[in-house]
């Protein structure tokens, strides 16, 4: 996977966030200090795998250091925990998406590394899309 500790790669994948036990805010990725109230009382929390689309676009030319295909979708998905997450989208045509539509977490292939291993990352897909 593109980085350990960001998500679980399983049948029911999850983003690995944390929750502050003082101010109750959720964060992603996982932090040992709350980025909002600065308390050190954070607990690991898996985030909901389904949310709604809040903003989206598509990147048409590979940015520096990028190892995947273009074009690709990038957007913000709002999760029920009161958190908005920056994410890849499986849909790279902005015209095919609408604000507020349901989106679900997927673990998707990103590229094949120099040793021939498939590298996966997290992305959100419209609910119901195969």
């Amino acid at each position: 996977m593109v980085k350990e500790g960001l998500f679980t790669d399983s049948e029911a994948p999850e983003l690995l966030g944390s929750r502050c036990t003082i101010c109750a805010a959720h964060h992603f990725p996982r932090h040992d200090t709350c980025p909002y109230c600065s308390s050190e009382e954070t607990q690991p929390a898996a985030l909901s795998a389904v949310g709604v689309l809040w903003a989206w676009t598509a990147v048409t030319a590979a940015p520096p250091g990028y190892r995947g295909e273009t074009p690709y979708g990038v957007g913000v998905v709002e999760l029920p925990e009161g958190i908005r997450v920056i994410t890849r989208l499986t849909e790279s045509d902005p015209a095919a998406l609408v604000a507020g539509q349901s989106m679900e977490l997927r673990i998707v292939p990103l590229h094949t590394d120099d040793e021939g291993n498939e590298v996966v990352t997290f992305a959100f897909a419209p609910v119901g899309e195969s």
Partner: protein
Amino acid sequence: MKGVAITGVGMHPFGRFDGVSTTDMGVSAVRAALREAGVTKGGFQAAFCGTAYGGVATGHKVLSRLGMTGMPIVDVEAGCASGGAALMLAAGAIRAGQYDTVLVFGTEKMPKGIIRSSFFEPWQEEAGLAATPAFFALRAQKLAMSSGVTKDHLAQVVVKNRRHGTSNGDAMFQKGITAAEVLASRVVCEPLHLFMLCSPNEGAAAVVLSRQDMATNSQATPITLASAVLRSHLPGSVLSESTPLSGLTDDTVPPATTLAARDAFAEAGLGPEDLDVVECQDTDAARELLSYEELGLCEPGGSAALLESGDTMLGGRLPVNPSGGLLSKGEPLGASALGQVVELVRQLRGECGARQVERARVALSHTVGRGANAGVVILTR
């Protein structure tokens, strides 16, 4: 802030200059600013140099070339607001009585194409989550939803600024452009087309600051630095220039630009209604419109209407980016904020010829970018 004057300004044009080094450009801008200020070797007690890609001791290399060292020389990196940060430090030191005269300059040679920033972790780049134009595009889309900004509005911002830039000999693009040409350029990240994005490039700018009561050697009208503020972001907004991976479902967190503007207006004892001319961050066309709202030039949601009114064009009530903005000049990070200040000083002195804003007395400069860093500078004459 009382008692700080800008006594000299200088620029190396913004553009692409193969064979001209970061040091060369800095030397050129610094020499011009010192000459205008009537300041010679030994005449300033500190120097601050804004740069993001210049490398170790960029400021020292410039001043060594001029044989003017011995004083503290500090490089300042604050992303797009590096020059604003340098100005804040210099002005604060003068106000505190530490120095009488301080040199502030910025110089930069940016890599070509989408800016690669060490700000991001390698995995973010690898996964495609470090694409700067994508963040611009997401902000543009939210602005479209909140303020009714259309692609035509975005194209009109480019047309306006490029028209302003036609008389700026220091700009990278000095040719006008039509809305049709903007909309015919390729889509980089929907809704942003290529010509709606500024070009990272090269250039330098310099200003000399002095205690107001000692600003007597200047060859030109001294301009008062009423305030110079730098602020970082508060956490919470997923689309903040701090580019976090997550944020809260809370739209009440004020952006860094608003924090800086509020402080700058308070320090100067002025408000948006007092402004005659503005240079604001237009890294992309939507960013200019967002800046109208975040700086308080209009009500939240009012940016498209303000643009449509024609007020922000040269000849309008409050011209924005008379220099042509970054859309015409391009953006050398460490120099861009000071480039705005150079333009505004010349506007307040009445030296701008075809792009002169009539009777300009109060001016505001705004830069915002990675960090987040937001700089707001208010100048008066």
